[in-house]
């Protein structure tokens, strides 16, 4: 579905991604784990078109039988249209807009009004709290609610591939459980997920496959289970001694 080939990315003068290779297949949950500053967020921003890759290629195939497209140079607006939705780090809901408007703006490019309405219902079934809070400004929500809103907003564009940046960041453990359960459900309903996480334990448990990124390069990859048992990974990310 998504193939990153040797991407080299600079932010200003800083060389951040040094030839990242990564693949996401249809229907998967793929986790990308790594320490602070390893390049996880940059990888997602490069896919979603916020940052341009200086060298390398990103290829995307929305459906198994669709033709593969080169999206390396597509701007962010175009990426959303193609079916990739990026739920950014730290939630970043629009705090001046109310909950309903936040969800509607997720569907900004869609012209199928009726389907948008039914997707609103779908998101509200996933996260019922959003319906109760729909007239409230998003800034007044708790962290967990904002996370739900951010995911709901990302789903409103009806993505084939959902990019999630640290959904567990700053949330209470039970809330993290809730969110991860939802991700499983969203995936089961047909959305492929690329998940970036510092909470490696939970991410590896959820993901079918995972990559470890270190200082701008992928150093390990395998099934979630394999990586969770890998000695180096356990030492570096799972707190094993």
């Amino acid at each position, binding site marked *: 579905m998504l193939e990153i080939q040797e991407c080299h990315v600079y932010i200003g003068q800083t060389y951040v991604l040094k030839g990242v290779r990564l693949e996401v297949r249809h229907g998967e949950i793929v986790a990308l784990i790594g320490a602070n500053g390893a390049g996880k967020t940059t990888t997602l921003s490069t896919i979603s078109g*916020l940052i341009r890759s200086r060298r390398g290629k990103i290829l995307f195939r929305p459906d198994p039988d669709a033709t593969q497209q080169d999206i390396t140079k597509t701007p*962010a607006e175009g990426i*959303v249209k193609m079916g990739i939705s990026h739920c950014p780090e730290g939630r*970043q809901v*629009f705090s001046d*807009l109310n909950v309903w408007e936040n969800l*509607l*703006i997720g569907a900004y*490019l869609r012209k199928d009004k009726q389907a948008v309405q039914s997707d609103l219902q779908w998101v509200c079934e996933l996260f019922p709290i959003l319906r109760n809070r729909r007239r409230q400004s998003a800034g007044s929500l708790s962290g967990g609610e904002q996370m739900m809103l951010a995911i709901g907003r990302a789903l409103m564009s009806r993505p084939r591939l959902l990019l999630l940046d640290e959904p567990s960041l700053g949330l209470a453990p039970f809330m993290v459980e809730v969110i991860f359960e939802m991700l499983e459900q969203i995936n089961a309903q047909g959305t492929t997920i690329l998940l970036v996480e510092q909470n490696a334990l939970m991410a590896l448990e959820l993901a079918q496959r995972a990559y470890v990124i270190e200082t701008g390069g992928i150093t390990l990859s395998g099934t979630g289970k394999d990586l969770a048992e890998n000695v180096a990974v356990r030492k570096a990310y799972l707190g094993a001694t």
Partner: protein
Amino acid sequence: MDGYIAQQLVNGLILGSMYALVAIGFTMIYGIIRLINFAHGDIVMIGAFMTLGLVISGKISFPVIILLVFIAGAFMGTLIERVAFRPMRGAPQVTGFITSLAISILLQNLGILLLTAQPRNFFCPDYLQTIYRLGPVSLRAIDLGIVVTAVVLMVFLGLLVRFTRLGMAMRATAENLNVARLMGININHTIMLAFAIGSGLAGVAGMMWGGKYGQIDPLLGFVPGLKAFVAAVIGGVGSIPGAMLGGYLLGFGEVLFVGLLPPIYSSYRDAFVFITLILILLVLPNGLLGGKTEEKA
């Protein structure tokens, strides 16, 4: 005395309407790309000359002139954005600020070159000069027109920003440029729209300026530009309701300061404006309706 105060309040309302219209554009542009646009006042000047040109050239009715001047202002605003500010996007804030000063000087000098620095009399049709008396208060038809037009435009803008898809996109872009892009919003369009609306309003304010003062020259944009800046800061820069509130407060404040104190103080009216600004900022550093302290460059 009561009649005198009532008259002053009406004068404040008229002045405030013009300040508010200019301040809205100023605050919209700042809100969306954090640009302090000192060329904004010069759009007022362009609007004033455009009006004069249209009035002289023929029998175009005033509502049509309002529309044409709005379009001309909007066109100038988007042109400036496209040519001068978009290439500076992502540069430090100071770069944009200096660019706007350069544009301002350029527009003023172009004005002098093409129109000479000689002040010109601003024509108003007779029916706009009719004086109405409401009890102790007297006002010209044009004053009434200024207030009504300003209020109509502001209500219209409020509805647009609050209830339309475009307005939602503008609010989202103003809050977070990058996340707005992730929603599929073309921020170049949104930014251009903010420039278009803001500059259109400034153009209409120029038309009012000419009608109110009766004389226009190519440097007239400086004062409304500066006052709009102050009004926007008082209201909380980036906030549209704040700009409206700031504009009216400034209008009332100025008129009452001149009207109620002995005449020898009247030349201090601009000093008064800035003292007020300083006092408000001491108590409320974000202005009256400005929310957050975060600074997005």
